[in-house]
């Protein structure tokens, strides 16, 4: 399975994680994170639309993955991210890491997520009965990169 996937289709988190864990040799730890379309505080999210930059997206994800593998000595890592129109509570993306021990797997997954948030060319738009609104980047997302 390609370790970097950018797709519009829905995916099965459990099946993806099982396949990833089964494909790794010699790892004692697997960590995963999944992002899910969150409803708004007002409870009226109709859909989330994710736009991306085909070509740059794959390049950016491959670079983030390669850096994480080298830096945390991971046995493997995978990134799956969707684009297009998503209903509330649908999975948006997931990352998984495998390493000999848990600390590297946890840190590798956190690193992937921090970089994915603000260095991979995806843009989220929230659709409500009132219209569409682009999700603004948070300063805290940019600040999160400083810890690495």
């Amino acid at each position, binding site marked *: 399975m390609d370790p970097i996937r950018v797709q519009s289709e829905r995916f099965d988190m459990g099946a993806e994680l099982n396949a990833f864990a089964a494909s790794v040799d010699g790892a004692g730890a697997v960590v995963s994170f999944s992002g899910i379309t969150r409803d708004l505080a007002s409870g009226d999210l109709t859909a989330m639309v994710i736009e991306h930059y085909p070509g*740059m997206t794959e390049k950016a994800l491959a670079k983030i993955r390669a850096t994480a593998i080298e830096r945390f000595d991971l046995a493997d890592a995978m990134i799956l991210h969707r684009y297009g129109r998503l209903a509330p509570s649908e999975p948006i*993306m997931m990352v998984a890491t495998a390493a000999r021990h848990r600390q590297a797997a946890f840190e590798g997954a956190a690193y992937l997520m921090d970089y994915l948030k603000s260095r991979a060319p995806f843009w989220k738009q929230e659709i409500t009965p009132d219209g569409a609104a682009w999700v603004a980047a948070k300063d805290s997302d*940019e600040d999160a990169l400083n810890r690495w």
Partner: protein
Amino acid sequence: MTLSIRYFAWLRERVGTPSETVETEAATVADLIEELKARDEGYALAFSDPGSIRAAIDQELVAFDAPLAGASEVAFFPPMTGG
């Protein structure tokens, strides 16, 4: 030089097109932004807050002082919101 320019998210909406081809002698990304802003009010408004815009040359994130020499595709977009 001939450059392909791409726009994403709200920048695409404000400019009114996802992509276009331009002839330019701009030396840097910042120079290109000034050229685009001078075109009309729509572009001027789209690029009015440089702090809320990011740029890529040939699909690599760059700073606004990056030279355009040798570039074929430039992209402008808001700060990314993946994950």
